[in-house]
């Protein structure tokens, strides 16, 4: 399982990377593996406000659905529309397949670094 060191992670298994003032958000390798084959992602719209700790969309596998939780508060400035046609990108490369980008960030959840997140996942897998 892959935990890139340059990213931050939430306990609800989203990753965040900062691109200037913009937060790029996706789900972790651990999350995509637990979900199995992703079949659809319900995305928010550009301009929607998101709040740290609240769902901004959800992600479906054949027989399950999970909320996508935003690790930051702000305004959605981009959504990855490629995922509408090819949700499998999330399984193939979860760190390339970003889901949303958020700007005007006003707040953020406490996040883990790669090592702490890896330990957290190991615990969850127990």
């Amino acid at each position: 399982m892959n935990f890139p060191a340059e990213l931050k992670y939430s306990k609800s298994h989203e990753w965040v990377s900062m691109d200037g003032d913009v937060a790029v958000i996706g789900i972790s390798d651990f999350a995509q593996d637990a979900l199995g084959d992703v079949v659809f992602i319900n995305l928010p719209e550009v301009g929607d406000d998101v709040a740290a700790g609240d769902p901004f969309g959800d992600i479906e596998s054949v027989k399950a659905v999970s909320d996508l939780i935003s690790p930051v508060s702000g305004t959605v400035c981009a959504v990855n529309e490629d995922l509408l046609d090819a949700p499998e990108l999330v399984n193939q490369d979860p760190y390339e397949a970003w889901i949303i980008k958020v700007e005007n960030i006003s707040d953020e959840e406490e996040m883990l670094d790669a090592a702490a997140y890896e330990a957290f996942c190991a615990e969850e897998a127990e």
Partner: protein
Amino acid sequence: MKLLFERSVSGRRSDLLGSCDVEYAALPEEFARKNPPALPEMSEVDVSRHYTELNQQVHGVNSGFYPLGSCTMKYNPRVDEDMAALQGFTGIHPLAPKDAVQGCQEVLDTAAGYLCEITGMDGMTFQPAAGAHGEFTGVMLIKQYHEKRGDSARKKIIVPDSAHGTNPATAVMCGFEVVNIPSAPNGCIDLEALQAVLGDDTAGLMLTNPNTVGIFDENILEITRLVHEAGGLCYYDGANLNAVMGIVRPGDMGFDCIHLNLHKTFATPHGGGGPGACAVGCKEFLKEFLPHSALMEGGDSIQVRSFSGNFLVVVRALTYLLTLGREGVPEAARNAVLNANYLMEQIKGTFVPAFDRVCMHEFVLDLSSYKKETGVSALDVAKSLIDYGMHPPTMYFPLIVHEALMLEPTETESKETLDEAAAVFRKLYELGFRDPEFMHNAPHNAPIGRPDEVQASRKPVLRWKKEQ
């Protein structure tokens, strides 16, 4: 198999209506269809053979054992079909004058009376078309009751985590917030967890009893008392009534309103996923809130669909009730419970029951340790059963048991069928240790192999189109 459309031949047709004996009326151009719908063009024999071929790839209750937990796949008597096909019922317009529909009214009144007696309720409607629709109707009674009393703070419906998904979905459709409570280790309501969430904001509790793990909650009187004390009402999900009909009544357990799935407990056919029919019953104080049809009865009551419900399904259920009668109703329940316990006993020693105790009409196997040992999942076992001509049990439900297989044999299976089924389970248990790979790839003798469900949902193809 070919699709209807692939059997279509341009210009082929049957003369079903004959020529028109009056002059055609002109449809103004702006309302006219541009192109005819591309329906198949077939002769009657094409239609007949097509559907005969399809029907051969369906497993019904008449084909063999169908222990699909929580669905009560009991035998559907043919006389019920004959009665529902009588022209004196099928040919009746729902808005015909009252004096012309006395027989229909008698069917509804008689069925309502019998079901009130079986459930301990005072009023009954047949308007809802299915179980989930009945839940909606029943919870709407609770909503109206609190609103009429001006008790507007009651916004929460309590649902145990073992509940059917329809319960929480229904509560939300009725504008309530769902409070999930964890089950106790024995699969029943955790009284402390219940007490912790009860309060001035409690609208009601939705409960299935026997519950979804097949256990009758022995604290039921305490549970309903606590909810009532908090000012809430108790809703009985009748999905599992087959275990207790004629034995114990939801009304006596303290429930205020209930729904009954006529297509489960009262033997009307499931039809490949409907039409069902649902009876929603309530105590006297809720009767004023029952739904009615605006066209049939007027008034400003709630209404959950057109007219008075799936009437012809009620005819079937009444025929069944009349056949069983006073003795037959509890006899069916007792044998449903006996069959479930007997089957569980015969499987024991191989697959492990999630709760090793006397069950009601169904029981749940927990295959999580088996999966750890063999790698064979509940899904693999389910698919392997298909090769033995047996419909798989309900899989992965209830959510509180991992690798769950839920079996409900019903009373209409004989001891021989149960013995044979148990032998198959024991055999598969062994096979999992010997040849797990074989089971991962099951079924081997079905018309198709395992379908690619991922593709079906990622790139949905939901209709046929002529190839360009």
